[in-house]
């Protein structure tokens, strides 16, 4: 068995065949058995399998692209569950993006942020206010709601405004460290939510607790974006942008500064890392992804109200980051996907199934223990079990490994590409 496994690890062809087979079968089963959530999830899991293969990065991206852009929507589109699958996939994308943003702050720069959802709220409200008639209440000029074409500009505006809020939060935060930082950010998140909840007077800006209904759907060339299957592509594009940016940042100078600050602030400062700039960058960049997704979220839900931005949401995103593995981009992606799918689809399906069993009389469950109410409990149990048995996260972060001999031999050619040739397996893992 072990030998077989070793062989498999080394043999790219075998990996390719297995992957192809896997994707083929799951796609086919999703295509044929539309109601099977399992098939949908297994098809998504093929990306995980892909991650563990030892192909080149470009190949991996290409395969992932084919699966996500073509295969997944196409095979799911056959039946009734289409929009439902796409809704889940869209939300997964939104959460992954947010978790990646938080990962920059918590995982890379080591700044514990408990009020991260505030930036999401800022993004959502910046589109929500101007894409409904709400802005008429306080804007002296212009006619609202704005048309759906403005959505694309608002993605940028949301990104910018959230980054601004990130810096605004960052400035006072620079003075505090560790757990004090956590409580300051927590306070900040709550302040933002309470203000949004109460800003219907003296001037009605956010419409308070009543929320903003009928947000204009985005439109492009006269086509309105109404269905999750359409938002899926918007989210996918932003997500790819996010992953790309985060990966670039991670291995750039600023990324190394973040890690230095995380490991030891004083030592980093002594080595010439500018603390203020580094921390502010982390906050601004982390927040900006959240802001963009906030805009998308507002447009997708067509309704914004303060109940979507509670402290519990901040904690949920933090749990995604920790569960996946702090500082590890693939880990965080996996963590966010697992948490979202678990909460939105798997637990709902399980409770429905149990419910059906108990109504048909196969098993009897007392009413207070009705499975439809147990989601919180199952969720809690899972968190405990995961933390106990997999505390370093699902896919722990790895630092890029450099071959010392190679470095000594010629530092000129010792860049990432030549390393990749040397030890494909090690490099593949830290992707």
């Amino acid at each position, binding site marked *: 068995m072990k030998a077989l496994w070793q062989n498999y690890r080394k043999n790219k062809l075998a990996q390719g065949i297995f992957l192809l087979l896997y994707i083929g079968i799951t796609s086919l089963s999703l295509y044929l058995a539309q109601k*099977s959530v399992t098939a949908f999830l297994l098809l998504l899991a093929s990306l995980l399998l892909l991650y563990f293969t030892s192909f080149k990065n470009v190949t991996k991206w290409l395969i992932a692209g084919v699966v996500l852009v073509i295969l997944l929507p196409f095979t799911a589109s056959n039946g009734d569950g289409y929009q439902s699958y796409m809704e889940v996939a869209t939300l997964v994308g939104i959460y992954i993006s947010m978790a990646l943003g938080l990962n920059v702050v918590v995982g890379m720069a080591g700044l514990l942020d408990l009020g991260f959802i505030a930036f999401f709220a800022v993004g959502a409200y910046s589109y929500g206010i101007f894409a409904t008639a709400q802005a008429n209440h306080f804007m002296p000029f212009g006619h609202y709601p704005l048309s759906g074409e403005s959505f694309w500009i608002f993605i940028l505006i949301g990104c910018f405004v959230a980054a601004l809020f990130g810096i605004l939060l960052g400035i006072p935060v620079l003075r505090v460290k560790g757990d004090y930082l956590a409580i300051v950010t927590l306070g900040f998140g709550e302040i933002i939510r309470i203000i949004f909840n109460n800003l219907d007077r003296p001037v009605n800006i956010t419409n308070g607790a009543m*929320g903003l209904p009928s947000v204009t759907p985005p439109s492009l060339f006269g086509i309105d974006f109404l269905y999750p299957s359409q938002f899926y592509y918007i989210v996918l594009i932003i997500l790819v942008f996010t992953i790309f940016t985060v990966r670039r940042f991670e291995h750039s100078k600023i990324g190394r500064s973040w890690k230095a600050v995380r490991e030891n602030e004083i030592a980093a400062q002594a080595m010439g890392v500018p603390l203020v700039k580094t921390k502010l960058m982390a906050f601004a960049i982390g927040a900006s992804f959240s802001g963009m997704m906030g805009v998308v979220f507002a447009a997708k839900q067509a309704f914004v109200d303060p109940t979507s931005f509670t402290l519990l949401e901040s904690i949920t995103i933090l749990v995604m980051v920790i569960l996946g593995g702090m500082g590890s981009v693939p880990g965080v992606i996996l963590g966010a996907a697992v948490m979202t799918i678990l909460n939105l689809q798997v637990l709902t399906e399980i409770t429905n199934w149990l419910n059906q069993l108990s109504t048909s009389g196969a098993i009897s469950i007392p*009413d207070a223990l009705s499975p439809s109410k147990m989601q919180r409990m199952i969720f809690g149990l899972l968190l405990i079990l995961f933390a106990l048995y997999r505390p370093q996260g699902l896919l722990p972060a790895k630092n890029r490994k450099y071959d010392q001999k190679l470095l000594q031999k010629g530092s000129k050619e010792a860049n990432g590409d030549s390393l990749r040739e040397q030890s494909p397996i090690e490099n593949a893992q830290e992707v």
Partner: protein
Amino acid sequence: MKWKKSLAILLSGGLAASIFLAGCGSSKSDGNEGKSGGKVIKIATQTPLSGGSATIGEAIKLGAQMKLDEEKQKFKDLGFDLQLVPYDDQSDPKKGVANAQLIGADKAILAVVGHFNSGVAIPSSEVYEKYAIPMVSPANSAVEVTTRGLKTVNRIVARDDFQGPAGAEFAVNTLKAKKIFIIQDKTAYGTGLAEAFKKAAESKGAEILGFEGITVGEKDFNGVLNQVASKKPDLVYFGGIYAEGGLIIKQAREKGIKVPILGGDGMDASTLVEIAGEAVKDTYITSLAGDSSKSEEGKKFIESYKAKFNKNTESYSVYGYDTMGVVLKGIEDAIKANNNKMPTRAQVRDAVRGVKDYQGVLTKVSFDENGDNNYAKVFIYSFKEAKYPAELVGEVSK
């Protein structure tokens, strides 16, 4: 390495299982239709079953379930199997929308009973509209729920802009309140109701001494009540639900605030009396529910509910019951109009909107072009002693 290996095994295992399940799944659905000789009609409920508002969500679900069980035989005779699918929206708009997509995906679901929170109902109904699934709400009173011109959205309860003014009318004309202090809970429901009340009370000439918000989930409201005590109003209005309302009544009386307290339908629950105890005296509520303990059907409902679930009825259980009644009436009409064949969702949607003069336990139902109930009435109750339900002292109709 071990981790990856187990992952690979897990994935391949899952694959095998899925193929197996897929095979079973398709054969099962065939078998299902053959066995009962009829087709399955599912009706979903979407209410909060966990979290802070779970009592109410549960009450709506159980009420709906009871009606569904009662009507099962009738539909069996028509050749259909009725099934209830409860969903938990957790009072969270995201979850509500995701569930709505799941509901949309299940072609057997023809109608939805829900939601409790207007903040969840509004985004979710956008999804129902796309799938043409009719939604009948047992509890949403926010004005925007029906004014967006959706064909699928209906409700059996009165809107805030009807209930609030009815309360104001009672406060100013019957209770002779000149100076009113308003407290609200900063939720969509509480704010909407309190704003509507405030507007109407001002136009009737009452002076509003204060308009303060509290935080849902807290238990100590002495700060706001100190303000009330120093302003010395003739009436306190609370826009919110019973959990906070009961505590406010109790703490106000402990502070020596002896003026009448008026609240909305969210306070209409036996738990209010349980929480406030003796302090509940001299409290008034405007409710959308008629006195169900007086009528024959009402008594029967309360008894059989108790017998079936071993629980006392909450005000919302009867809403759930009637909502399900309207939904089933609509489906029945649609089936009949379709020559006893399975109706489409669009047909059911139009049939539900077209329901005329349905007599429920609680209220009579006919929908207008927005989906609002023409017969929605506001009843005014007074707590003369610490006993639930309270005494009916007046009613206002549209």
